[in-house]
């Protein structure tokens, strides 16, 4: 048993299985969170029927998708139609392999980590193009063409934004980038006399466009193209396109957090006096606080099973928060908590965009990409190159 745990492949393989098994569930709950947050922006309640406050909605949705009839249009290219969602899914998931969840928990730390992510996301575009092309429907074809043009336009700006961060880090390895921030004792977004905020903003806008989210959701603009590239898809296949979309959202946020917001480092990583507060107390308070606030909701729930489930969830949250106060577990949990917490904040920001901005016209989208984002990104690289020499 000990030989298995000590094996160098043990943590990578375990992480692989956990990520692949859990991410579909996480994606389902991301959808629920997005619906709930958007509902809140619009003064509605959002999903409330399945489980207390709609907490079981993702499971019901997944079951429905699997049990739905799978329709492949007659004129479509069957083989490519079959393969396209698989390409989208596995490329989106493979990017998780190089994410640094903590100094010890990761699948692999190759020395070209960030290149692996851009490589697989470039292949992921193929899934969308092939899916739209093989459906043989006008909406799908237009959606996939728009998608391809949009993704390649913003990829250039995205790479420029990454270049600025890589210049400061001096390495392409995802762990190496976080370690470089640990050594400098500062998150890279505040590096170079604070100028790194400019590439971060370019990164955030391009990442929103790369993940096809509102205000850049032209590839699947409902009011113009019905469903865009996945108009003809139904059931599990459609589910896989959604899964890859949310995986891309997660990965884009994770890359932003790793390059600019310190990865798994807590705030003020160089101040040892704050270590206990940020590593143990803060996460414990977050979990215990959300547990306590869900206790308040219990008496208002109309059904008894809902009340029981909510009580179990509240107790589990408080208990999980208490685990952070155990010193032996803190060293394992705290970095993962900070990595996921920052990702959650970036994802919340993207949902906020969706609740705030109307969709762009296609020419506006191309203008922003080619006339603003690329020159700003290129300029940011030049300014950072000069500023970086003086730091």
């Amino acid at each position, binding site marked *: 048993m000990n030989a298995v745990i000590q094996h160098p*492949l043990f943590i990578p393989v375990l992480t*692989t299985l956990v990520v692949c098994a859990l991410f579909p569930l996480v994606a389902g709950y991301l959808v629920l969170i997005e619906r709930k947050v958007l509902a809140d922006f619009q003064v509605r309640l959002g999903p409330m029927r399945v489980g207390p406050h709609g907490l079981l909605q993702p499971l019901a949705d997944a079951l429905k998708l699997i049990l739905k009839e799978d329709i492949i249009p007659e004129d479509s290219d069957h083989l490519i139609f079959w393969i396209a969602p698989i390409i989208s899914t596995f490329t989106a998931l493979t990017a998780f392999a190089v994410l640094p969840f903590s100094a010890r928990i990761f699948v692999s730390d190759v020395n070209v980590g960030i290149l692996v992510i851009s490589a697989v996301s470039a292949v992921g575009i193929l899934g969308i193009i092939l899916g739209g092309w093989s459906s043989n429907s006008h909406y799908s074809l237009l959606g996939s063409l728009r998608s391809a*043009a949009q993704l*390649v336009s913003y990829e250039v700006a995205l790479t420029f934004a990454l*270049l600025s961060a890589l210049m400061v880090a001096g390495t392409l390895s995802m762990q190496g980038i976080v370690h470089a921030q640990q050594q400098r004792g500062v998150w890279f977004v505040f590096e170079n006399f604070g100028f790194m905020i400019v590439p971060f903003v370019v990164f955030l806008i391009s990442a929103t466009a790369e993940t096809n989210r509102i205000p850049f959701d032209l590839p699947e603009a409902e009011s113009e193209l019905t469903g865009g590239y996945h108009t003809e898809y139904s059931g599990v296949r459609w589910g896989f396109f959604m899964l890859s979309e949310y995986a891309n959202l997660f990965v884009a946020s994770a890359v932003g957090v790793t390059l600019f917001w310190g990865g798994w480092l807590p705030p003020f990583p160089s101040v040892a006096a704050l270590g206990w507060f940020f590593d143990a107390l803060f996460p414990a308070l977050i979990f215990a606080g959300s547990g306590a606030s869900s206790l308040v909701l219990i008496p208002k729930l109309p059904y008894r099973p809902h009340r029981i489930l909510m009580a179990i969830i509240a107790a589990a949250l408080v208990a999980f928060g208490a685990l952070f106060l155990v010193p032996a577990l803190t060293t394992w949990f705290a970095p993962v908590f900070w990595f996921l917490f920052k990702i959650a904040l970036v994802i919340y920001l993207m949902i906020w965009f969706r609740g705030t901005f109307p969709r762009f016209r296609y020419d506006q989208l191309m203008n922003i990409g080619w006339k603003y984002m690329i020159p700003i990104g290129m300029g940011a*690289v030049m300014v950072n190159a*000069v500023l970086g*020499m003086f730091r």
Partner: protein
Amino acid sequence: MPPGYLPLFIFLAVAILLPTLTLVAARLVRPSAPSRTKLEPYECGIKAASNSRGRYTVRFYIIAILFVIFDVETIFLLPWAVQYRTLGWFGVAEVFVFLSILIVGYIWAYKKGAFEWV
């Protein structure tokens, strides 16, 4: 094989297997009752007027060509970005020369209207 790649390939294999197996498994539980209308491509309820694989605007090709130029450019910059500290001012000067040549090209493409959509 350089270190660190084995877990990456294991992950890749698992990530390919996951959607494939789910698709195959879902076939066992889902109903299948195809009909002629169901299998038509969707076009707001009317019969598709034409095959979708027709002509589309040349703008998409221009965007693709521009992308190749700028993407290769960023690929060239990556090795410099990693060695930025070691190369120092010399590297910065070289990259400024490289980027200024590209900026001239960018301005030319801008003037020619390559970035105009419509």
